[in-house]
């Protein structure tokens, strides 16, 4: 089963709860909320903190802290009069390396940073000091790329999950951010602190209402609206929710708890804990796609210029599709709302004893029928370029969704038959993704070249899985 964080946290970035909790009641309450969050983490079996910080902007892709023991004395650029923050952390360098490689596998520009004296941002330092004061857990910190959009940030989280899966880590995901981030632009006395405006406060409370109800994906999909409404256009947007929601499979049925909400110099500071336990309510109000791979910049400023980047084609392809059917429902059928609908009268899978037989699974996305990596031909039937690796990843993802529906996972797969429409062109890319995904679990495999598949896709897999005790 795909990993999810054992807990997910939203925490504020400013140093006041660390350096001056006694100077303002609200700062003290945020400190208490931080302490509560620390205790909640200590009660889990988490073995790493994974941090996405909006206060570490990057330009050249995504940077991951990989120094084993970063150490320095930090002083905040604004609140230097509150004092210095000496720190020394323990970094999970193995996970940093794995995340970096997973980023590259998913098309992201990525680099590790491991330099003495590297300036770790104040948000990460404050969070580490308060959530993990004795360095019990190692950390991994990732930057927030100033140019990254939702798709790129979504993929960044998926590559993080790839790495966590690969190494079997149990991670706590931490988004460091203010809610409303408008601060007073002149010094204030601690007792004068309040949320900058009633509008900011109202939005903050709305966000917290969503998060308290575990509706993380709804907050993520409201991200742009929130940014326009209550965010000063500093360096990065309200991106952490994109990352955190993608880390949680875009779920809306988490169990949320708001541990604290107070002003820090006018900004909205909140400590929220999200647990993967289902709240039982998972409907989604919004429906943006969950992107699997990043296709790079589109050279929008250089129209006509050649690009060697693979373009993900997301044109509607309903005209190329056969009619979609509701999955056949019998007492042994296994059907998933998360998987694409069949193109005929058959279920997604059928359970016979402890063996699960899956119908052929392709890369189509449920709801939209879009094909990650692009269709193999356009609406006129003309062959077009596509990305076999993205298609293969999407196939595996769909298989996993069906297996999950049956209470199984990729580990339970025992035999796979793969159908490729172009063996010469696609075997290598397909084989690479196989090795990273299903291949890691050791099922038997047969790969066959065929002339065509019912939809404009290049790869389909037929899967047999075995799980549980014999009946």
């Amino acid at each position, binding site marked *: 089963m795909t990993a999810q964080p054992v807990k997910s946290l939203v925490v504020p970035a400013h140093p006041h709860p660390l350096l001056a909790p006694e100077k303002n009641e609200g700062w003290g309450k945020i400190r208490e909320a931080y302490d509560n969050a620390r205790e909640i983490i200590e009660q889990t079996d988490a073995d790493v903190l994974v941090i996405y910080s909006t206060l570490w902007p990057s330009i050249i*892709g995504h940077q991951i802290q990989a120094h084993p023991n970063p150490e320095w004395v930090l002083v905040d650029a604004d609140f230097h009069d509150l004092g210095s923050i000496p720190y020394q952390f323990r970094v999970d360098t193995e996970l940093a390396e794995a995340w970096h490689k997973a980023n590259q596998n998913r098309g992201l520009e990525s680099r590790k940073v491991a330099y003495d004296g590297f300036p770790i941002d104040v948000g990460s330092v404050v969070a580490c000091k308060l959530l993990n004061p004795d360095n019990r857990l190692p950390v991994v910190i990732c930057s927030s790329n100033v140019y990254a959009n939702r798709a790129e940030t979504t993929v960044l989280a998926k590559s993080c999950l790839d790495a966590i899966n690969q190494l079997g880590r149990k991670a706590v995901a931490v988004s460091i951010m203010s809610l409303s981030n408008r601060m007073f632009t002149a010094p204030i006395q601690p007792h004068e602190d309040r949320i900058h405006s009633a509008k900011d406060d109202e939005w903050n409370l709305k966000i917290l209402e969503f998060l308290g109800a575990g509706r993380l994906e709804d907050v993520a999909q409201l991200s742009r609206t929130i940014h326009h409404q209550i965010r000063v256009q500093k360096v990065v947007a309200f991106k952490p929710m994109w990352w955190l929601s993608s880390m949680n499979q875009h779920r809306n049925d988490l169990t949320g708890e708001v541990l604290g909400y107070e002003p820090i110099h006018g900004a909205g500071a909140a400590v929220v804990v999200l647990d993967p336990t289902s709240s039982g309510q998972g409907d989604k109000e919004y429906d943006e796609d969950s992107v699997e791979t990043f296709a790079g910049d589109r050279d929008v400023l250089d129209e006509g210029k050649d690009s060697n980047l693979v373009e993900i084609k997301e044109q509607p392809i309903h005209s190329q599709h056969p009619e979609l059917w509701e999955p056949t429902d019998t007492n042994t059928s296994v059907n998933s709302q998360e998987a694409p609908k069949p193109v005929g009268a058959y279920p997604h899978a059928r359970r016979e004893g402890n063996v699960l037989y899956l119908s052929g699974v392709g890369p189509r996305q449920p709801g939209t029928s879009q094909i990650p990596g692009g269709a193999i031909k356009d609406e006129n039937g003309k062959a077009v370029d596509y990305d076999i690796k993205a298609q293969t990843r999407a196939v595996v993802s769909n298989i996993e969704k069906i297996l999950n529906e049956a209470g199984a996972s990729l580990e339970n797969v025992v035999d796979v038959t793969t159908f490729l429409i172009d063996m010469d062109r696609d075997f290598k890319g397909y084989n690479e993704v196989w090795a990273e995904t299903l291949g890691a679990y050791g099922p038997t495999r047969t790969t066959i070249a065929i002339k065509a598949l019912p939809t404009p896709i290049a790869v389909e897999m037929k899967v047999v899985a075995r799980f549980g005790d014999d009946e």
Partner: protein
Amino acid sequence: MAEGQIVAGLLAPHPPHLVYAENPPQNEPNSEGGWEQLRWGYERLRKSLEDVDYDCIVILSPHWQTYVGTHFLGLERFESLSVDPIFPNLFRFKYDVTVDVELSKAIHDQAKDDGLAVKMMENQDFRIDYGTITSCHMIRPEWDKPIVSISSNRGHAYYSVEVMQEMMIQLGKATRKAILESGKKCVIVASNSLSHRHFTTESEVPEDMSVEHISSHAMHLWDMRMIELMRSGKSQQIVNEMPEFVEQAIAESDGGALTWMLSALDMPDEPAILHGYGTIIGTGNAIMEWPSRNWRENS
């Protein structure tokens, strides 16, 4: 006491690539050069200032970002290691900076009297931003002049370019008044690029000049327009067009340094000298000098 003087105003961009390419002993990474047009531009600037007598460099950098007013370094000496958070592969620089605290405090006090939100930075553990270090190093690699380092208060982000400029014009006037009253001769430095759209990838060899160019034609046109306005002494027009420039060229002058510097020079009609122009990872950079020491009613 004789009246102080601003002997020159500079536009001095701070990409750390320039220091990296110079291979100074303070910087740990080594390069094979690169960005020569700009480095030679800085060389011409240094030549221009070679025989100029001045006491202090007053610099405003957009990489000391403060949201609660404008801050000033308030201790005499800072010695540490600066590592660029974005290009740490290029810039890991050991610095030893002397601050003219007296002048720093004088500008702070004047700005406060003029109604601006200001604060002195007096924490010895504070790390000076890499923008300030890069520009100062490229202007005066001997590091034998004290500096006054002023933060960028991000008024653009909180309000608008127009409001930011009002603040920076006021700060420029306060800076000018404090310098003239101090009796000191100063070089004032706006540390910023022009157009500021970066490439999001980097060559395996960062100094590979075969891949260096402006990020788009539109950025080039804006850069050339701004340089031409500077070369023809149209300071007020630069200020007037700043909102469009910032919006369309994602210009780094959004940090306020250029407007502040022009205001401190009293919005000169005199032309600036172009010492060099070049791109760095797609951004447009010009090295300009306003030689106010030579003007009839000099500053």
